């Protein structure tokens, strides 16, 4: 009976409650940093106390009766699969608070934001630690409400609609998830994940398993976002504040995919085997669809959101193969995506804060000239995200493709070879849109022109964009205006927002923060992520050693590698 998991969930909850006290509220961000630092220390302690000799078994469990009437138990524990995710959550939340210290939220009310983020952290960590189906569901839901408020109160222009769509969509998904969990409960008789995983679905009829997997899969697919159920993600990201986007992309998406690894696949193997081809098909559609959508985006944050759809497609492809290497790849890609996209959203937030807009056409070019450090970090993050070996992004995708190359015995080999091929092409498209974005935003000459007198009509987010043709034919001399308008689009002259360094006042729109390069707080928030991306890139064994045995036990040693 270890107190660590309970402390991990309790400390942020207490922190949130205390933060509502007026005395604490005016120094809220400092308090937030303290609490999240405490949680990070606890998470590291958890990692230290974890016995790496046997990562497959559930360790540091604390199992208390919660609602005796229903037989629900407050059962927390951690194993190879959930350990990295818990540490990732604690780290990302701590970095978000550090970032908040230097950059107070635009919407004001920092105290309320701190409380919301701490409650969010409770939900996130609880989800990864929970070992009881309904406890998992409770934490899964606890996360939604604070995220709604983060988007609705501190978001961008059309935040209300985005927040409502976010919460309604995910709530619908969770309702279906609950049905699935209840089916499992009635069929298997117990809610304890460890016992259920141990049985490998022996006690349940095949049709019940398929039905339960379908329901649970749909609920989780909304959260991961699987392809057709993803439309809430771009809106939520475009409107969420930097901190919200980082946590939404860094952790909330992982809860969906973690659900697949912890509940759907080990508990319902026959259901998984029956629906794996569909899961694979949607995953691969997500990869191709996400990368194509990114190629034609104008808004930077929206593009990164669609790139998350693509990357989570790889994660789902890894799950669909139902092989240990596939699951390994999926879990690795999970953690890597959390780090990389967290960094990307931090950078996008920084760009949006300095330029006042995230519209790539209005950003003009030459960011490497004006913000050398932000731009070089953006280049690093994009290169990591497109899956360069030596950085974290590569291993997850490679292992997922390797899993798809030879799926588990029951699945049809040629179908998964097609999935692998499309996944590979998706990787090329990923490289295409990231480099296209880099060459539009960071390269080129920074044209010093003041924006047009009147307020620019905001480009409606997903109208076909004036996209720049990356691998164009023989290079033709580029016009001075650096306006890369597609011939089709009405070539209205869009003056890039060029708040030149040192130019103060006289700007249309609200007074913008001084146009400084990266600040101390931002560096403090970003460098740990950069370090971890390089560490996991150069030394994947750090993560794979923990997840491989756990995954083999989850899939049951019977499954051929």
């Amino acid at each position, binding site marked *: 009976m270890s107190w660590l998991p309970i402390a991990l969930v309790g400390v942020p909850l207490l922190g949130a409650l205390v933060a509502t006290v007026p005395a604490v509220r005016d120094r809220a961000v400092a308090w937030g940093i303290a609490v999240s630092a405490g949680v990070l220390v606890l998470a590291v302690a958890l990692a230290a106390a974890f016995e790496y000799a046997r990562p497959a078994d559930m360790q540091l469990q604390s199992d208390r009766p919660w609602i005796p009437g229903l037989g629900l138990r407050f059962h927390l524990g951690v194993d190879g699969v959930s350990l990295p995710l818990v540490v990732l959550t604690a780290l990302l939340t701590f970095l978000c608070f550090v970032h908040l210290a230097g950059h107070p939220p635009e919407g004001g009310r920092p105290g309320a934001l701190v409380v919301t983020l701490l409650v969010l952290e409770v939900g996130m960590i609880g989800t990864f630690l929970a070992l009881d189906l309904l406890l998992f569901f409770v934490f899964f839901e606890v996360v939604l409400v604070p995220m709604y408020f983060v988007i609705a109160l501190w978001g961008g222009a059309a935040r209300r609609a985005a927040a409502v*769509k976010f919460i309604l969509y995910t709530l619908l998904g969770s309702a279906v998830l609950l049905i699935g969990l209840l089916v499992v409960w009635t069929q298997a008789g117990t809610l304890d994940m460890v016992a259920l995983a141990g049985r490998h679905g022996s006690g349940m009829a095949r049709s019940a398993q398929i039905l339960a997997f379908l329901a649970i899969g749909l609920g989780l697919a909304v959260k991961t976002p699987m392809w057709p159920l*993803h*439309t809430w993600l771009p809106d939520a990201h475009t409107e969420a504040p930097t901190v919200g986007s980082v946590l939404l992309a860094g952790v909330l998406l992982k809860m969906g995919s973690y659900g697949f690894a912890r509940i759907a696949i080990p508990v319902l193997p026959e259901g998984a085997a029956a629906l794996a081809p569909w899961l694979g098909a949607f995953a691969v559609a997500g990869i191709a*669809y996400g990368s*194509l*959508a*990114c*190629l*034609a*985006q104008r808004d930077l944050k929206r593009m990164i959101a669609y790139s998350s759809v693509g990357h989570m497609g790889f994660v789902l492809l890894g799950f669909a193969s139902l092989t*240990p*290497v*596939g*699951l390994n790849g999926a879990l690795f890609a999970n953690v890597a995506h959390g780090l990389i996209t967290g960094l990307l959203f931090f950078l996008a937030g920084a760009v949006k804060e300095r330029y006042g807009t995230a519209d790539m056409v209005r950003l003009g*070019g*030459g960011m*490497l000239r004006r913000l*050398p450090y932000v731009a070089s970090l953006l280049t690093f993050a994009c290169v990591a995200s497109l899956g*360069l*070996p*030596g950085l974290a992004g*590569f291993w997850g995708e*490679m*292992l997922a*493709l*390797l*899993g798809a*190359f*030879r799926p588990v015995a029951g699945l049809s080999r040629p179908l998964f070879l097609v999935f*692998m091929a499309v996944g*590979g092409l998706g990787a*090329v*498209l990923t*490289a*295409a849109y990231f*480099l*296209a974005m880099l*060459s539009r935003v960071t*390269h*080129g*000459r920074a044209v010093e022109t003041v924006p047009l007198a009147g307020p620019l009509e905001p480009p409606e987010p*997903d109208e*076909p964009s004036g*996209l720049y*043709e*990356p*691998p*164009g*034919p*023989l*290079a*033709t001399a580029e016009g001075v205006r*650096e306006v890369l308008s597609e011939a089709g689009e009405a070539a209205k002259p869009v003056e890039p927002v060029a708040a030149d*360094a*040192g130019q103060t006042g006289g700007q249309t729109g609200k007074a913008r923060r001084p146009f400084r*390069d990266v600040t101390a707080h931002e560096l403090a928030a970003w460098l740990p992520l950069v370090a971890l991306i390089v560490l996991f890139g150069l030394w994947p*064994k750090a993560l*794979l050693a923990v997840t*491989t045995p756990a995954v083999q036990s989850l899939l049951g040693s019977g499954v051929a*590698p």
Partner: protein
Amino acid sequence: MTAVVALIVLLPFAAAVAGLLATRLGTRDVRAEDVRTRGVGARDARTADVGARAERAAYRRAAWFAIVPGTVSAALTVWLAAALARGTPATDGRFWAELLPGRTEGTLTVVETGSVPISLTLRADGLSVLAGILVVVVALAVQVYSVGYMRDEPRYPSYSAFVSLFTSAMLLVVYAGDLIVLYAGWEIMGLCSYLLIGHWWEDRANSRAAVKAFLVTRLGDVGFLFGIFVLGLSAGSFRIDDVLRADLPRGTLVAATLLLLAGVAGKSAQVPLQTWLPDAMAGPTPISALIHAATMVAAGIFVVARLYPAFLAAPPTLDVLGVVAAVGMLGAALAALAQDDLKRVLAYSTISQLAYMAAALAAGSDRAAMFHLVSHGAFKALLFLCAGLVIHHVGSNLISHMGGLRTALPVTFWTMTIGFAALAGLPPASGFFSKDAVLSAVEHGTGPAQPLVYASALLTVGVTGAYAARAWLRTFFGPARIEPLPEPPPGVAHVFDGREAPPSMLWPAGVLAVPALLLGLAGWAAGVQVEWGPAAASLAVALLGAGIVYALWRAAPEQDPARLLGPFRAPCERAFYVDAAYAALVTRPVLRLARGVVRTDARVVDGAVRGSGRATLGLSGLVRLAQNGNAQLYVTGLLAGLVLIAVAAVVLT
């Protein structure tokens, strides 16, 4: 021994990391200051020159970080070669077993992935040391050359760091013992080439060329990765020894090698994926010398040589390679003849020479291919460095702006003459020996495509002689046409005041001239048989090509001898419009598809979501009728219900 190999690979990597982070430390605040005060009154002259001094300090520190580790790595490679030479001769007739029999392999760690484990293994044998020496020597030469070439470039520290990173990635590919580790080095090379081609990113054309280079090679790399999957999974391990030792069924071998061929075509700019190399000339010339002449483009050929037993066991793949080589050889040579930009001439010549090596591999002799690879690496790097000197002097890449530089740039003239001699294959130079080794290999090759390959090889010798002579004549002879340009666009390096380049740039050219001249003789001495009959024939063809061009040039020095191509000149110059075809067939449709995806996403998928919202609102509108205040409507409903109940009561009971 493995520690030495590890050190060779890690030293440039450490240099890169140090270069990127350390050089800027002292100057961070000054640079930011410099950016902010740019163009604000004379009062800040003081901070400006403080910035300049910090700039030079960072420059010098970066230069040291680049050159010292490079030299140490070179020394270690030579020591390794010596150690291998003393090693115990192995029996399985590995490459150059007689010269470098030794072999060493060490595994740092094995990463369990759930199916096939990945082992971080480094291995050194004759083949890898030979390629290693080439890489290290050319890299050192380029680093020294760059110190002078990038005289007052603000971004030199990052440039030199990326070159060191590239060198370490190439060495990783050369010394990799595990296919996945090889793939890691393979892709990092691609990234460095992207970063370095886009070095002068102010001009969007350079950044566009960099993106194109990365995407085309990345497309090939995906095929390469799938090839590795096929090999790894069927052999049960990714280690190269296990893969080569396991006897895999023919079908998987052919599939794997064909997929690997995709990666090789991407990286070594062979026919289907060669459009990126000429555009890659947008990068600084030393980069063209290092990456796009000697090392990266040779990596594809090296990998085929490394996995040669697997390729030998898959004849159809070799035939495909042969055909690709034949087409690539001739096409690139003709294109080189029609180019006006000196660097693009050399780029197309590189594609053509690489096709030669591929032809040798297809014909079954990896020895000839590797010999030509090393000698080509030497003399092509030399040619690029000299081209850099000429461009430095003239201030423009175009041959039409050059002329009569023989007197102005004596050292460059002689070194470049050696280079062109080697390229054309004239006797004393190394090109003569290595090209004839390839020609005799191709002549004795078997397989259906052999006559086509041999014919195209002979034809290409002639065309090579022609374009080498043309470039040589128009650059150094004829009327002087240089007029120093005021301030060159950032795409071109800075103009010197007429004198020849500083010694730091001349020495590397001189150093590389030695192997360009003597490597052939050394190879011959080391036992490479030369068949004098075909060698004489190929020499005659080369001289014939050169003679025709000389005659045309003699007739009218101002005009371009390429007029002999007549109507074919335009297609040759545009490389047979392959680029435009790719743009029309691949790029535009993908972008149109992308916009279509965004439109459907907004209208269909999102529409369905918003539609469900509107449907529920509509439904509630219907129900609201019951409360719209119209009392008569209520009573009607009431009585209708009453009648229904009455009827039901009557009917049912």
